[in-house]
């Protein structure tokens, strides 16, 4: 019987921990941010989501956002994220494809 003793090639990741934001329980009366990353069709999806949510939550308010940097996928700068976080209660985004 032959035995190979091998070094594991997998690097340990740096541990990161992030708590999810506290959910509001109900969207009525809430300010809903619609964040489009500028990939094709995302704007249509967010506009339609707004239509559907407005029917269910007539008191909700909506605001559209896009990031100011990037190319086929645009991102928020930290300053923009700070501003948006102050302006809305929740965010719906198109981020992955």
């Amino acid at each position: 019987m032959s035995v190979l003793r091998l070094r594991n090639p997998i690097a340990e990741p740096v541990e990161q921990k992030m708590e999810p934001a506290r959910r509001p329980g109900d969207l009525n009366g809430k300010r809903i941010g619609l964040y489009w990353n500028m990939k094709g069709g995302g704007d249509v999806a967010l506009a339609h989501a707004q239509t559907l949510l407005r029917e269910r939550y007539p008191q909700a308010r909506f605001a559209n956002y896009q990031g100011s940097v990037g190319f086929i996928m645009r991102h928020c700068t930290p300053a923009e994220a700070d501003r948006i976080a102050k302006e809305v209660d929740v965010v719906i985004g198109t981020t992955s494809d």
Partner: protein
Amino acid sequence: MMEFEKRGVPTVSFTAETFVADARRSAESFGFGGLPLAVVPLPFTNQPPDAVCVAVDECIADVIAGLTKTIAVQKQVASTTDEWLTIKGPSELEALEEMNRLFLERGWGDGFPLRAPEERSLAQILKGTTRSADEIVAILEPGFGKATVEKIAVNALMAGCRPEHLPVVIAAVECLAEPQMYIRNKAMSTGPHAPLIWVNGPLAKRAGINSGICALGPGAPSYANTVIGRAVRLCMMNIGHTYAGVSDMDTIGSPTKYSMCVAENEPGSPWTPYHVDHGYKADASTVTVHFVYGICELHDFTNYEPARLVEVFATAANNAAQLSTGLWLIGRRADPRYGTEEKEHHTMFICPEHAANFRKAGWSKQDIRKAMYAKARMRFDVLMLAKERKAMEAAHPELQWLWDSPETMLPVVEDPDCYEIVVVGGAAGRGAFFWGAGEPQTREITDVGGDT
């Protein structure tokens, strides 16, 4: 969306089914297990509006749930478990086959047979560097893996590297981890971004890196090239945690992603070497990594006048089906976490024969760059064929007049310096053009061990 969650704002993201694992893995790497998603069957891109609306209709309940229901925080990416693995077989050969089976099953290989990273070989390859085995060279995204010298050495060993190759691989990993490289984008993208590596200086020869005939391989003369390029890919996988279908969402993939490494043919170049142009001493050794999308041949057996050669080369740059062509019209690759922005660069491997023709006529590399910039131009409407109009409106409000003048000819890159020039290859009029993704990064190799 992580940035909003960090700021106390609940989020939900529309995500296509194929990208669910990718999105979750990405969120987990930031320490956020349980990312709320509204899953749609297909990406919104390339879908007619009606189909997009149907997809949203079907997942609107998930949108609401994601924003209103408490998130069950899930377990993060599993950390490394055993640092040493024991594999048995009736013979050494069978144990090796078992190792290859097991490593592939775990996703740790690139598909080709791997060399066993056993203790004695590891000790040997580590002699190739003066660095300590436990030194953390970099943190490699997207998985935020700690790239210790030893982990790099293990992956280099698996790729087939020898001790003299290790410092090159370490410097390439440093290039990958440079914030300006924005590897998170290039590693995880749906595009075939592949690291093209070139080495300059005396170490290239000492490490046996081919700069001449068939430098990009395959074949015995390019052994060092092959294993160094392969090692960098394995480091992206096993240290950066870039895994196909999980965190590498490349639509088709590319053979270029297995390995692409050369040395600059400095003796065959009539100009100063690449690294000297970038501020390094001639006797320094450097590694440069440029992520590229693909290759096009620069074939010309006919012309010897520089202007005619550039005219031929420019046709390679004029390719609107290639993402980076005219990408500047809709912005720049940018990572807001580090405040970085990149212009799209292309790399040209000019063969010694063409290089000599340029030099005979008194042309410098900068003359070629300027001529390429002047010649590689396309109509605005053709450059925008596959680009989002609203992105162009956001990136360049001052250029909106172009929609009324679609025939306007525009450069395919932002400025002449977006063309990288490296002399590579044997004796024939055939170079290579690489459509780049962002900018290259260069690092000096300073940690060459005594046994190389």
